[in-house]
């Protein structure tokens, strides 16, 4: 049953991809539009998401950063964060056919499930700001990594400050 849906979706995607003219893509090469997720599927394997590292690097180069930071237990955006997000929004608007996974993180000094909620608060605030800068909702998805993906490994305020963040991840 799942394979039938997949092949059907792929057939639709194929036909869509072959029609029409596109503007010549800037460096690097853009992928075609992604296959939509079946909202009723309970197959975990239907959820895979594909990162686009070359475009991620382009975002960082052109917007300055793909990451903004937060205070302890906070999810409000300071001025620096807003400036960074405004630049990210401009990049997204200039780079159609990719989506952004807005990913919230928390430091280790919180319990596991609360941090999953806190990460979502951070990602949600970030997504709301990007939306206010004109990025459409259907190009963004929000997620939370809780405390599962620290970048800094110390148990001190410097490390924790680097881990309280929201990252804009470019996905297909």
């Amino acid at each position, binding site marked *: 049953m799942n394979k039938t849906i997949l092949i059907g979706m792929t057939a639709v995607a194929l036909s869509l991809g072959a029609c029409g003219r596109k503007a010549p893509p800037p460096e690097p090469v853009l992928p075609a539009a992604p296959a939509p*997720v079946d*909202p*009723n*599927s*309970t*197959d*975990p*394997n239907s*959820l*895979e*998401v594909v990162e686009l590292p070359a475009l991620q690097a382009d975002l960082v180069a052109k917007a300055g950063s793909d990451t903004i930071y937060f205070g302890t237990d906070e*999810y409000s955006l300071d001025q620096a964060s807003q400036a960074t997000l405004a630049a990210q929004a401009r990049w997204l608007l200039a780079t159609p056919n990719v989506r952004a*996974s807005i*990913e919230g993180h928390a430091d*280790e*000094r919180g*319990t*596991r*499930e*609360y941090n*999953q*909620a*806190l990460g*979502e*608060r951070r990602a*949600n*605030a970030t997504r*709301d700001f990007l939306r206010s800068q004109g990025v459409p909702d259907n190009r963004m*998805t*929000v*997620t*939370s*990594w*809780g405390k*599962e*993906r*620290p*970048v*800094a*490994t*110390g*148990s001190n305020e410097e490390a924790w400050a680097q881990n309280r963040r929201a990252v804009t*991840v470019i*996905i297909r």
Partner: protein
Amino acid sequence: MRMILTLLLAGIASTAIAQDTQEAAPELVGGSVKSNVAIAVPVMPGDPIGRQVSQVIVSDLRSTGLFTPLGPGGLPGYSVEEAGNPAYPNWRNAGVSALVSGYIEPRPDGRMTVACYLHDVTAGRELTHQGFAVTSDNWRQAAHKCADLVYSRLSGQQPFLDTRVVYVAETGPKNNRQKRVAIMDSDGSNNRYLTVGRHTVVTPRFSPRGDKLVYVSYIGRKPRVLLYDVASGQERLLIPGNHITFAPRFSPNGRDVVFSMAENGNTDIYIVSASGGQPRRLTSVAGADTSPSFSPDGRQIVFESDRSGTQQLYVMSADGGGQRRISFGGGRYASPVWSPAGNMIAFTRIAGNFRIGVMNAGGGGERILTDGWQDEGPSWAPNGQFVMFHRTAQGAGATRLYAVPVSGGSARIMPTPAGGSDPSWSPINN
């Protein structure tokens, strides 16, 4: 006349005195000495596996914190015929108070019987015995059942040794941690992995009968609750589509799963049938409502919420009504879990450090059980006497499972092959 009256009065008086003395039986008061029971577990005769059976019993009894087990090495052996009839004076001379004996015998159907006897050496009598028929490769379970028989009879508690633990096995550095769902016997043996480690996984929990799990996988870069059938390995998303779902737990009848869903900056608690269908929303106040846990009678749910400004514990009816705060001890409170008997709630208390504590189910009576830097995620043993949790070290963030007696005492590290977190203790097997 006076004489008769005097005699009568004397008679009544002496009868009264005699009756008083007869009714007030003298009272003997016993000691309540807190010390471990020295218990001998020699090698069980009848089959070479008897040595390992005795070793598992020794290790199980030691893990209860109530015994000083001796053996199986260094103890005299005995024959199958002597299992039910030991030489008590010898054991008394050896300074042991109790003795576990038994034997192993093949059965006509190819299985084996493991016979288990518990003796009170001091009183020179047998306290109990039971036989367990198992396939030969399931000898471990017979050993756990024997240890449970001994533990229950000598402590008055319900058993807890023939159980499993599902948890997250952790390997690798803090910034590239590989996490896999793992199941093991609660003595650390038979450890195996249920996921391959491609996606981060957290908080696996057993169903009430131990036949299913719910856990959270970061498949597709989002935390999502999966429902997993232990026997077949089949799994599916609890909630289809693109939602952030986490913190799942089964209801006591195994039919529903309560969980958190995060959307638009707010996290609320929902409940859904384990066989699929529309989830029902239970909380809606602005704030992060998470870590729900059912009372054993299925009527109430304890959860954490920061609606007051900080993480605190709340209790509500299973339909979401009557939400009221129960934690008032200063500090923040998280990850509550209702005890199997319904009388207590375990939690993580955050006040500088993260420590495991218990309180009465109605609130109050709070006792902190551990003393780590970051102890969190409690899970009750099925007899309510122990709580398992994970402890994270500062710096490199190595995480290990520990078990601590609820009545007080040191936490004991669990023998996992690698790091471990988010333990969930199964009910008694079978």
